[in-house]
């Protein structure tokens, strides 16, 4: 998955719009959902996993008639790849991120300790 513009046949036109099929062995649903959210300004998006969770069909309907639907579909696929990378980063760095934030604020008293147990007045 190099992230280059995919083959022109990735999308199949049907009555609803352009349909892109994602293999669940290679793409996770969360990445597809996040990409769909990001494309909400350009497309109406319908996400339909199959019952066996082997693939996810995504139907894209361009909101603006001047937009090239096949180009949009290609960009959508690239965005899913980007979201997959983000998932890798999030998974690996979750622990160290919490550690960093804890370390960053370990010497900061945002609330004066002696007032913690008293009602806020003023």
């Amino acid at each position, binding site marked *: *998955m*190099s*992230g*280059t513009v995919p083959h022109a046949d990735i999308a199949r036109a049907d009555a609803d719009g352009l349909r892109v099929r994602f293999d669940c062995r290679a793409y996770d649903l969360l990445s597809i959902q*996040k990409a769909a*959210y*990001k*494309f*909400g*300004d*350009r497309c109406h998006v319908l996400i339909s996993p199959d019952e066996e969770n082997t693939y996810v069909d995504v139907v894209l309907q361009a909101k603006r008639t001047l937009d090239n639907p096949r180009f949009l579909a290609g960009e959508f696929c690239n965005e899913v790849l*980007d*979201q997959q*990378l*983000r998932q*890798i*980063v999030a998974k*690996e*760095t979750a622990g*160290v*991120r919490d*550690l*960093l*934030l804890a*370390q*960053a*604020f370990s*010497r*900061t008293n*945002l609330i004066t300790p002696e007032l913690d147990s008293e009602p*806020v*007045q*003023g």
Partner: protein
Amino acid sequence: MIREQSVPDCPLPVLHRRFTEEHEYRASAGASYSLLPLRFIHLDADRYLVTNLVGEHVVTDRSSLDSFIRKKLRMHSPLYSELKSKHFLWDADSAVALDLLATKYRTKQAPLSQFTSLHMFVTTLRCDHTCPYCQVSRQTEDAHAYDMTTEIADRAVDFMFMSPSPLLKVEFQGGESLLNFGIVRYIVERVEVCNKDERRDIEFVIATNLAPLTDSMLDFCLDHNVLISTSLDGPEALHNANRPRPGRNSYLLAVDGIKRVREKLGPHRIAALMTTTRASLSQPRAIIDEYIQQGFRSIFLRMISPYGFATRTGMSGDYTADEWLDFYYQALDYILELNYGGLAFVEEYAAIILRKILTPYGTGFVDLRSPAGIGIAGIIYNYDGGVYASDESRMLAEMGDDTFRMGDLLADTYSEIMLSPALVEPLGGSIAECVPYCSDCGLLPYCGSDPCRHHRTHGDFVGFKPTSAFCIKNMGVIKHLIRLLEDDKDASRVLKSWGQPATC
């Protein structure tokens, strides 16, 4: 890293330490690395911008980014070294990386602990201008029912001093604030008396169109070290079209006022702001030339906001965010050209963003913070005692929407007001790290949020970012600045001087 070799017997053996051969350091670096928290975003068709928790950044191509994240990046390659030095990864050599990153993050977030430093006092809603884009829903000059009283002023000053911030900026707003100059004088004097015990660092600013400015007002400003902020939308025809004043030429009054302020208070005691209307979009150079002609050495290029009369007259929807960005890019290009020619002139919005990109510090600018600076960085006391989370939310209230009204100075305590759901709920929706689209965005360290605008335009505090004018604007500006820093040596030199001034 210093490795000890055998040292002679000496009270200060450190003096005899020597560096070992280079290969010994490489051998210790290990064969793998770990990722540190990062985000990324398309910068253009070929490149990605990668940022870490504290806003350090790297620009690279997709293939290298993929290799880096999948742990296939060649160690000791130039990109590896850059990523390591900027805290995107750590390896066996990076014993202090986490400590350094934590310290930098705490520095970036330091403004949070200082709490509310900007306190705006709306002295009156009366105004002598009839600007169609007015965000304030102004009242006519004779409507004294819309003036702040001394009772409310007293309470507002007491409230202000309950903020723990060591710096307090007192800003007078309106309407036209000088139309109730009596209360301006009253508040300044009262703040000075209170501050004898409080010992804060106080700044006074009056926002005014300058039309009612008298010599005695100027004398007062001189005696009390008051700064002036005014509006200058551009050359005479544009300024007057944007800011009509019945019976008088608004531009001539503004220009005369600017001159008088400089003569009395000094050349740097006045700043000007402009608002971009549709008529402005075709005149970026003329607007900047006007600022130079009036002696200013900076400009703050602003989009029109969707509040008050700007909404009723339709002006707030008069152009898209993309059209404003075209205007901005042209203006910035011209400003850079002027700098290359030897004239030091700054675009202030770019300067704020550049400080976030290039320095370890945060910003006090309310809209470029996460959580947003509403209430916790800036707060506004309306003429009637209402307390609002921001100037924009006060304008919203004048339109009949009280969503951001935190409380009443005459009825509520400090804690009731600062813990009001009208503040706490939108603050929650303004934490960029926790909302869709923003949480993964590579521009997050440089951006912020605007829950008031999103409430107004999208119906909730978070907003739908793919269509948000706030998001489109900031993405456009920030990416443009990063591309200039990366690709244009001359522009980069100028922009770095804006982002790394002598004092932050």
